[in-house]
């Protein structure tokens, strides 16, 4: 394999971004967008992994390395970005604002890949911020009312998350005196720092209740952007959490319980809320919330039972990769649906789309099943105390996902075709679907799964289908239709009216009167007689004052004056 210098991973997209600023180069660079992440892919797949690099002069001293944890993340992230970029090229071919989109995409890509290889806090944070902020551009791209609302919510959460993350990272760094990212998981790190960092990352992860931005953003963004948002960027949150949490060292029951509660809430809430939405992309997004909550649950378990961490960690990675591919395939499929008219072609597409959906629901023989199995294996090592609820939780998760997938597919099936979407948007999707199918074989050493487990994996899907059919029958019979929820949940209450003015108002009226105001004065009329009086009185007063206060002298009057001259 080719030896890829590690710093090329973020540098290639950045270099392209710089080139992108030159108008002449733009068309060429644009077509290179799908290639940009490949440096990362190469680096991840290289054997041996690229050597760590340290660049002292860059920022506060930058360090890049391909860690064992980062490597799979880099791999699937890069693949995802590449395919999403490809589809974006096709999808936005005629969009007048496409350059802006690609610029943001390159920046987000650089951030996403960079943060996975960054080894020092500053550059990790920098890449993280680059990713978050430029994704804002991806979310906003369409600039409709929905996009603006989503963008505002997104940037609010993102910035808040950034800031909290910054606070946590800096606290951790200053407490340890170490600027390496690895140090943030160390024992001297204050709990506050860990909590802040975790909070910042959980925003990115989409954990309840910090998930509010997520369905909005995914629904609002163009499909390829949703794909990377969901497939790659959410994983950055997971990656961050896996890096900064003190996992595998000491049990943190409190933290574990909190995290577990959040995760369980996500698991339950996500399907409930998602089912009420009418936008397939929003439904898919809720599914992401659920899936990410599942991964959070794994983290919670590892916090509670450090010993289980070595087993849970690969499972989480596996889960992440699986979810990345599957969800990306689904999102990339959305334009494909748009591009296909209703009829057999669409049915074919739907069938192919069902594959990642089933995988997500944990259908045996899919990457989903493999991942779930791995997680179960990992959790088994930790099953004591409240962790006995993990099993039902996993079931619930699968059930919820299955229901959401059914809902999504139904919505997609009914989606109106868009004539301006070219058919070749399907190519990246096909490639992604291929990856999903090939998923189980891509895993280096898959966990052993038995048939019983396979069957139990099937259970939630069956239940879900049954439920769905039941509900459908009931609704059809009662001539009812599902009321859809406005996007944004509680935030919809504060959503602006159609043409919102972002946080602006006219400046306050200018205050008057700071300075001394000078008015016309009457002409000065000298009053000499008063002056004369003044002279008289001043002289008299001075004379008296001097006479009275002076040192007493011998008083000898009657010296004749005439003898002077």
């Amino acid at each position, binding site marked *: 394999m080719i030896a890829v210098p590690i710093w090329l991973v973020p540098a290639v997209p950045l270099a392209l971004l710089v080139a992108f600023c030159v108008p002449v180069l733009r068309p060429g660079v644009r077509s290179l967008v799908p290639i940009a992440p490949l440096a990362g892919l190469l680096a991840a797949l290289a054997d041996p992994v690229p050597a760590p690099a340290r660049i002292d002069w860059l920022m506060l001293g930058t360090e890049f390395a391909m860690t064992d944890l980062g490597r799979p993340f880099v791999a699937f992230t890069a693949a995802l970005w590449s395919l999403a970029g490809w589809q974006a090229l096709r999808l936005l071919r005629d969009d007048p604002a496409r350059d802006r989109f690609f610029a943001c995409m390159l920046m987000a890509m650089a951030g996403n890949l960079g943060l996975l290889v960054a080894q020092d806090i500053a550059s990790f944070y920098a890449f993280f911020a680059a990713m978050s902020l430029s994704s804002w551009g991806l979310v906003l791209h369409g600039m409709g009312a929905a996009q603006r609302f989503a963008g505002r919510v997104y940037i609010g959460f993102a910035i808040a998350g950034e800031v909290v993350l910054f606070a946590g990272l800096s606290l951790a760094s200053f407490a340890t005196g170490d600027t390496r990212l690895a140090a943030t998981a160390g024992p001297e790190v204050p709990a506050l720092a860990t909590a802040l960092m975790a909070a910042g990352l959980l925003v990115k992860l989409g954990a309840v209740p910090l998930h509010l931005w997520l369905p909005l953003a995914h629904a609002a963004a163009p499909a390829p952007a949703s794909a990377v948002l969901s497939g790659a960027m959410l994983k950055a949150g997971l990656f961050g959490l896996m890096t900064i949490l003190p996992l595998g060292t000491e049990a943190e029951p409190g933290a574990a319980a909190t995290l577990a509660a959040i995760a369980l809430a996500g698991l339950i809430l996500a399907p409930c809320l998602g089912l009420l939405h009418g936008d397939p992309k929003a439904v898919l997004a809720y599914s992401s919330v659920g899936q990410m909550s599942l991964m959070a649950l794994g983290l919670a378990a590892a916090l509670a039972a450090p010993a289980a961490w070595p087993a849970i960690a690969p499972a989480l990675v596996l889960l992440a990769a699986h979810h990345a591919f599957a969800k990306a395939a689904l999102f990339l499929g959305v334009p494909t649906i748009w591009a296909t008219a209703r009829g057999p072609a669409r049915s074919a597409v739907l069938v192919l789309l069902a594959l990642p959906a089933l995988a997500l629901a944990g259908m045996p023989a899919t990457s989903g099943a493999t991942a779930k199995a791995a997680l179960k294996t990992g959790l088994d090592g930790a099953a004591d105390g409240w962790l006995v609820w993990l099993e039902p939780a996993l079931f619930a998760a699968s059930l919820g996902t299955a229901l959401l997938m059914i809902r999504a597919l139904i919505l997609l099936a009914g989606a109106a075709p868009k004539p301006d979407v070219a058919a070749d948007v399907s190519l990246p999707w096909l490639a992604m679907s291929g990856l999903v199918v090939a998923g189980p074989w891509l895993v280096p050493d898959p966990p052993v799964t038995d048939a019983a487990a396979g069957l139990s994996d099937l259970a939630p899907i069956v239940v879900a289908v049954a439920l769905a059919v039941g509900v459908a029958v009931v609704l059809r019979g009662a001539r009812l239709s599902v009321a859809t929820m406005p996007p944004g949940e509680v935030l919809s209450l504060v959503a602006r009216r159609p043409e919102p003015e972002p946080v602006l108002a006219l400046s306050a009226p200018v205050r008057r009167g700071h300075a001394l105001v000078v008015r016309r004065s009457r002409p000065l009329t000298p009053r000499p007689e008063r002056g004369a009086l003044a002279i008289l009185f001043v002289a008299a007063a001075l004379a*008296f004052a001097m006479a009275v206060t002076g040192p007493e*002298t011998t008083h000898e*009057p009657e010296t004749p004056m005439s*003898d002077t*001259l």
Partner: protein
Amino acid sequence: MIAFDIVLTLGLLACAAMALTLRDRTASIAAFVVAGLLIALSWVRLAAPDVALAEAAIGAGVTGALFLRSARRIGPITGGPVGGMSASIAAALGAGGLSAALFWAFAGTSGPVPYPPLVAANLEASGVTNPVTAVLLNFRAWDTLLEIAVLAVALALVVMLGPAPVVPRALGELVLPFARIVVPLAILVAGHLLWQGATAPGGAFQAGAVLAGGMLALVLAGIGPAGERIVRGALLLGLAGLAVFVGAALAAEGLTGRFLGYPAGAEKAWIIAIEASLTLSIAATLCLLFTGPVRRPHQ
């Protein structure tokens, strides 16, 4: 004599009050002239005949004429008294207070008066025997020089402000005998005072004032040459006094190394020479103050 002094003082006060309060300019001026007379008498009573001479010359003679001339120019008094009753009372109070302080202060003066003995001790070296002249033109000649400068400035002021030249009414032939007698006499008196200054009360100021009085009489009588050239000559004469004095001061420094330090032995000559020029200068100045300038040719 105490009764004399008291009456004199009361008269003086009365004149002053009249000069201040009369609502007729001529009356005020008349009162002022009388006050001048009384002041001269006071100086006599204060044993200062030099000052009395000067006051007599300036106060009684020239100022009255000057005031009348001004009064004619500015016209009669209009409007009520300035400031009203309250101002008058305030003024009276202030003046009273100040006078009281002064009275007390002067009444209380005591201690050594080192100056007269000092003058007496150095009188010999001064070149003159009249201590006043010694002080004015030798010991403190610088003061005198500056006083001459005051006159020169006054002259320059009059020249500059350029009041309309006075054209006195022709007084007729009767005034001729008066002029024929008075003017030569005035010149004579002036010369007398000038020469006498070295030894007795007198000097350039007094002489100049008397001379000016004589010349004024001539002017008022409409006698003698008039016109631009003579007025210009008077101007030059008036200014010359200062020039001569300053020149003498510098010349003296050139000779003796001391500013205003006359060569030893020749003091009297220097003093008389300076005084002579000052006399003419003062006379010309006073005259011009009355007549006003002739309009100087523009550049």
